[in-house]
């Protein structure tokens, strides 16, 4: 027994000695705390595909251009202006007097180095594909660069918001390995410390070229469990969390300690119908059946009653925030009689049975419940589905990519944060793309036309035509664009960002 006691006390002693103490003394009043569900793999944003990396990157690095959260338009950041000299040449003027966190000045050399780094296939950076249309970057003078593109590249300006500017000096002197854990940016905050899977501590960059952040410190805490995140928010351990599930909004709003804030986000949900027959012959290859599916479902009431209003009805796959969205195009209205008639015309007077590949709420809140509602509406018209559930996102996407999905399957698309119709048309709706089961030559032609001109007016017209086409053809079962829910402590003032990038430097203390 004595031995037992000694052992127990040794364990306790060991535990207390070895547990690391918090090193940086920050006062809670000077700190804003942000909760994330999972950690980043590195501090090198072009070397990551995670949204968390984009978010953290924004707080420490700057991009050439940035989105204005109020207008939704892309405006200046490290670049002050840009213009296209011809169809394939862009000239960009850079901001002067900007310094990296290590004190070295930011110049055209850093821009060239940042793009060259991501474009060089040998560097194996995952963001390469996003910028592959850029052929070369030339330095004109210290604060002017010229980009050559491979053909007209209308997404050029959009994509300037997608690459962080890193320092040429750091790349040369410190190298890739070092950069994975040591971000040297020009952004509003500097990284002080990263305890992996636990927390990041940032400190205000007092030399920042932009407006001075209100909080001196940012702590980013990694809290995997949603219920714990909400408990932390209510008990004051965290100030801002994202991706609050619809059914938890009340818990937060009634706590008196925190509230929720909602924003439309750049993600559209749909059910893909295998028009192209990628997984073999199926009823959805007939337009009448696809149209019947769209007419069978009362999407508006599902948004209202199942999603608690957290969605915006769309006529096609194009998100209202994306360039090219046509607000004039009206979504389908439920019409069961017409749906049944179409099915009968298509040769299914007694309805039909079809397999439906379903997943979990990985990127789409409440998808299990909303799909249940859709399934029951479809059955009323005679489209009887047989669900195949897949529990993990990896295997689910594998099935789709390999053409082994069912004739209908759930899908959402986040546009890779490119606010442009092209970003969903090309990847999700053109022939032979890994995640597309729609193939229509006329539509493909429009998409190619749209990405081959820099004329915004012309592009708008092309995309209006394209949307009309896929709407009339009922390419997929169209659902809604998503709204995100954030939880915000009553200590701070913060609005949900429409591009899902949480910027800690705009958080301010709440006036009492």
């Amino acid at each position, binding site marked *: 027994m004595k031995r037992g006691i000694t052992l127990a006390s040794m364990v306790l002693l060991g535990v207390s000695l070895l547990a690391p103490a918090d090193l940086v003394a920050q006062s809670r009043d000077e700190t804003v705390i942000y909760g994330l569900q999972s950690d980043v*793999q590195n501090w090198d944003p072009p070397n990551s595909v995670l949204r968390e990396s984009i978010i953290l990157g924004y707080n420490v690095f700057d991009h050439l251009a940035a989105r204005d959260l109020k207008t939704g338009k892309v405006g200046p950041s490290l670049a002050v202006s840009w213009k296209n000299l011809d169809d394939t040449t862009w000239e960009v003027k850079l901001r002067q007097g900007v310094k990296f966190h290590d004190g070295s000045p930011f110049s055209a050399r850093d821009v060239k180095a940042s793009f060259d780094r991501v474009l060089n296939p040998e560097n194996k950076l995952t963001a390469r594909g996003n910028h592959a249309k850029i052929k070369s970057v030339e330095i004109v003078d210290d604060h002017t660069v010229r980009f050559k593109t491979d053909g007209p590249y209308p997404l050029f300006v959009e994509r300037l918001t997608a690459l962080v500017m890193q320092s040429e000096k750091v790349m040369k002197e410190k190298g890739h390995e070092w950069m994975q854990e040591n971000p040297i940016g020009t952004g509003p905050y500097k990284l002080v410390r990263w305890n992996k899977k636990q927390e990041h501590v940032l400190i205000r960059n007092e030399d920042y070229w932009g407006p001075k952040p209100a909080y001196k410190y940012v702590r980013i805490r990694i*809290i995997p*469990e949603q219920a714990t995140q909400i408990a932390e928010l209510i008990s004051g351990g965290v100030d801002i969390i994202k991706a609050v599930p619809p059914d938890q909004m009340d818990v937060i709003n009634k706590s008196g300690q925190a509230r929720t804030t909602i924003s439309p986000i750049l993600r559209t949900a749909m059910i893909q119908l295998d028009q192209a027959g990628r997984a073999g012959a199926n009823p959805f290859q007939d337009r009448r059946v696809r149209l019947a599916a769209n007419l069978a479902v009362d999407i508006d009431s599902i948004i209202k009653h199942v999603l608690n209003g957290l969605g915006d009805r769309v006529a096609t796959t194009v998100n209202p925030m994306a360039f090219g969205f046509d607000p004039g195009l009206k979504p389908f209205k439920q019409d069961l009689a017409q749906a049944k008639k179409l099915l009968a015309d298509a040769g299914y007077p007694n309805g039909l049975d079809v397999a439906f590949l379903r997943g979990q709420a990985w990127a789409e809140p409440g998808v299990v419940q909303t799909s249940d509602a859709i399934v029951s509406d479809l059955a009323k018209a005679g489209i009887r589905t047989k669900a195949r559930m897949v529990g993990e996102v990896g295997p689910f996407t594998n099935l789709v990519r390999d053409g082994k999905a069912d004739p209908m399957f759930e899908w959402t698309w986040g546009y890779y944060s490119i606010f442009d119709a092209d970003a969903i048309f090309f990847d999700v709706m053109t022939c032979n793309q890994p*995640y597309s089961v729609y193939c229509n030559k006329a539509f493909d032609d429009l998409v190619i036309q749209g990405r081959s001109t820099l004329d915004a007016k012309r592009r708008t017209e092309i995309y209006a035509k394209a949307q009309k086409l896929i709407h009339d053809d009922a390419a997929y079962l169209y659902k809604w664009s998503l709204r995100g829910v954030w939880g915000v402590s009553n200590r701070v003032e913060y609005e949900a960002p429409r591009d899902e990038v949480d910027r800690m430097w705009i958080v301010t203390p709440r006036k009492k």
Partner: protein
Amino acid sequence: MRRYIARQLVQLIVVVFGISLLAFAILHVLGDPVLLLLPQNAGKEEFERYRHLLGLDRPMYVQYWKFVSRAVLGDFGKSWYADTPAFRLVLERMPPTIYLTLAGLVVAMVIALPLGTIAALRRHSWVDSLCTVVAVAGQAAPIFWLGIMLIIVFSVRLRLLPASGYGTWQNFLMPSFCLGAALAPITMRLVRSGVIEVMNMEFIKTARAKGLAEGRVVVKHAFRNACIPVITVLGLQFGQLLGGAIITETVFAWPGVATLTVESIRNQDFPVVQCAVVLLALLIVGVNLLVDLVVGFIDPRIRAA
């Protein structure tokens, strides 16, 4: 004794080999990791290039042999996800999990030993019944539920403890209680039945007959003998405890190796999963070996056999 240890060591190698084979096989069944490493809109060439880069285009036995021959040197390759050596990643995250399981073990003992003993000595009394109720309730309550309840009571309502995190002693209280509570019931039942059995033994009668105080009889004579099955079971339960750590770590945002493993499985980060599985298996087998030695130390009869 030496032969006994040698035999245990051989078993250890066989077990670890088996586990490495399993870890290797299961991950390859799960699907294509490259899919999660690249953006969804990456082209076909990009996929092929990455697959080649990671050696995934080579035959399975070549991949496995490469893995094993390096693993014995502690080289499990680089994490595909984090771009750092898997071994370092796993090792870094090992201490929090070990502290948590040890603390959980301590909590379990602190609950189970006194309660189990009292229940045995007051058999069929209300104390015994109460202990049974507590045990059943404890065993029935899922760890994640208990964890969230603790958070709601102590963090949200009473505001006494931090809801999650790692680093201070306050952070230890709820997770270790949570984990300990899951292990306590079975331990308590074992202590109870052990003590009951021992109390009927001849040597207890002898101890009483020679006039020892009852407390001394229980602590000195009964308890030590009742401990043997308890220690054995605690050793066996160590694996369970690590399993419970996965949930506890997730609920309390504990930066341990259990969550790292689950996350790596989700990300299909082969090197990290393989490294974690092998090291955890070593740990479990090591603990069991230790338990066998301790039991042998307490009970000379086992050593002889």
